[in-house]
């Protein structure tokens, strides 16, 4: 019987007086091919459906029979199913008890009011998240202040480990990225400045843009993609396996143990990475200026020292710890929000990266305004 599951076998329906005789193979493929409306037409007016000729039937076939019987019975005539073997009868019975309950409500269409409500809910959710994030920031800063008072509570091993993870291991990618940015700036700047015969100003262009903005901003973006996502994924999977709950039950504070070392490591290492990015951006710019414009490294250096205020470098470095704090706090916060399922882990990891990059750029803009006002 099982060998006949191919598409060849079909069910046969014939009428004999007030009986509908069903024979052959009534499985899911056959049911899918039947014209069910025509079949109902055929079944109406009968008082009996005889299935003694059925060789094979599955859930779909049983449903078809039950459905046919119910629809044909609607007009006060009761239709009976006869000729079922014991196994068939059992299957039909199970299917009959598994039919959809009648009168299930249809989902209603969305109105404008629903849309407005949805929008309102999104706004409230966003505000609530901002509040939660702020309160988490406060919690972490509070815990850090506690550590300043009692330094023994700092997990030094963990801190060093994370410093290596987020700092040392990121050096190659950050250095390469900044070097290439320096190259690009020199190349593009030279092309424009040559028109005015002002090639030598390319040094100022590179120095100011790399030191003040690009070096630290792009480093922060790379670190957000690299370490922020790693924080969310690591803490999130711990949350999924209930490790965070286990910590709380034995009196360990997850913020002290997991969050503070990560955030501190970032705050220590991001300025260092930013410094490396600055240097390697300048080197990239110098190399390209030399090749493209013939500005020798000695000239580049002397112009850099004489023309570029040290505050440009200072402005970049001041921003680094703030960017680190943003990336660390958002990465850990999203990690702690992971629920029981794997999907939320993936979703929150990408949220964490997007949100931290967005916040980094927004804070960078605010710093720009601030420094413009104070005049450095």
């Amino acid at each position, binding site marked *: 019987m099982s060998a006949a599951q191919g598409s060849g076998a079909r069910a046969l329906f014939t009428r004999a007086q007030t009986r509908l005789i069903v024979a052959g193979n009534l499985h899911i493929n056959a049911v899918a091919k039947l014209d069910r409306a025509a079949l109902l037409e055929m079944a109406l007016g009968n008082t009996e459906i005889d299935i003694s000729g059925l060789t094979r039937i599955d859930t779909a076939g049983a449903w078809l029979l039950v459905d046919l019987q119910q629809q044909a019975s609607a007009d006060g005539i009761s239709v009976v199913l006869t000729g079922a073997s014991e196994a068939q009868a059992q*299957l039909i019975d199970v299917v009959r008890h598994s039919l*959809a309950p009648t009168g299930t409500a249809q989902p209603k269409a969305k109105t404008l009011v629903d849309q407005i409500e949805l929008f309102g809910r999104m706004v409230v959710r966003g505000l609530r998240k901002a509040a939660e994030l702020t309160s988490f920031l406060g919690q972490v800063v509070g815990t850090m202040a506690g550590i300043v008072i009692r330094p023994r509570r700092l997990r030094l091993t963990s801190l060093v480990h994370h410093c290596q993870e987020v700092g040392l291991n990121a050096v190659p990618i950050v250095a390469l990225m900044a070097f290439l940015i320096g190259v690009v700036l020199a190349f593009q700047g030279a092309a424009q400045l040559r028109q005015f015969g002002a090639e030598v100003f390319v040094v100022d262009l590179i120095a100011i843009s790399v030191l003040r903005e690009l070096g630290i901003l792009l480093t922060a973006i790379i670190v957000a993609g690299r370490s922020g996502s790693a924080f969310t994924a690591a803490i999130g999977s711990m949350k999924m396996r209930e490790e965070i709950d286990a910590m709380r039950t034995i009196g360990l504070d997850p913020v002290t143990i997991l969050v503070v070392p990560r955030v501190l490591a970032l705050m220590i290492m991001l300025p260092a990475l930013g410094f490396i990015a600055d240097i390697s951006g300048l080197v990239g710019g110098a190399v390209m200026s030399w090749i493209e414009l013939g500005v020798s490294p000695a000239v580049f250096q002397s112009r850099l020292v004489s023309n570029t205020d040290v505050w440009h470098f200072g402005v970049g470095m001041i921003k680094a710890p703030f960017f680190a704090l943003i990336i660390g706090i958002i990465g850990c916060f999203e990690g702690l929000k992971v*629920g029981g399922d794997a999907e939320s882990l993936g979703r929150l990891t990408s949220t964490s990266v997007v949100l931290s990059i967005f916040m980094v750029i927004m804070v960078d803009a605010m710093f720009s305004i601030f420094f413009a006002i104070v005049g450095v």
Partner: protein
Amino acid sequence: MAGLVDDPIIRVRGLVTRFGTHTVHDGLDLDVRRGEIIGVVGGSGTGKSVLLRAIVGLLKPVAGRIEVLGESVRDTPEEEYRRLRRRWGVMFQDGALFSSLTVRQNVEAPMREQLQLDQDLRETLAGIKVRMVGLPENALANYPSELSGGMRKRAGFARAIALDPEIVFLDEPTAGLDPIGAAAFDILIRQLQAALGLTVFLVTHDLDSLYAICDRVAVLADKRVLAVGTVQDMLKVDHPWVREYFHGPRARAAMASAEGAP
């Protein structure tokens, strides 16, 4: 070796599986009869789940021959294997539901993939399957993460029987359920096995399940099938692990309850 039968629905001969240098099965033979519920038991690490994975073709054995429904699982061409795969369903330990789909969509997934059905019919049939495994009406629209462990297992079972297979493989269906839920699941397996004419390959730790629903039991130990037979047969097997398993205090309790309520 005992328990080999003519015309089995699953036939495993000389199966050898290995992970690196660790040999899991070494020359394992097993026959499963059409229409029976066979329980596969064994200590942790004896390769019960590995055997299941090898039979359904998720894992490539080092040596040996596996035939399901008369066809070799490993050497058949892809097209044949696809057709063969449609004739069995697998339920993994925690249901392994697709977390981005609702329960209804999960059950529809195999139908969508394997058959050309119109949406109405597919939804109706998926609804029937979900109600068949005893899930409430509102579970249809729920996502797996919104269900309890027991409900996830039921939904996984519904997906396994979505195509009316001839064989279902169940990996620890009652693990992690409370005794009432586990007993209800046992009854469900028995009922659907009878109604749909299923052959059930049941990997389990649960002694109550063995006594309540299994026609035969296969014991995995020493890298092969040590014994096959009814639970009563197992009581006579002279092997330290089997004796400890079937004569331990939990086994006696399960036996007593099975005799008390036949």
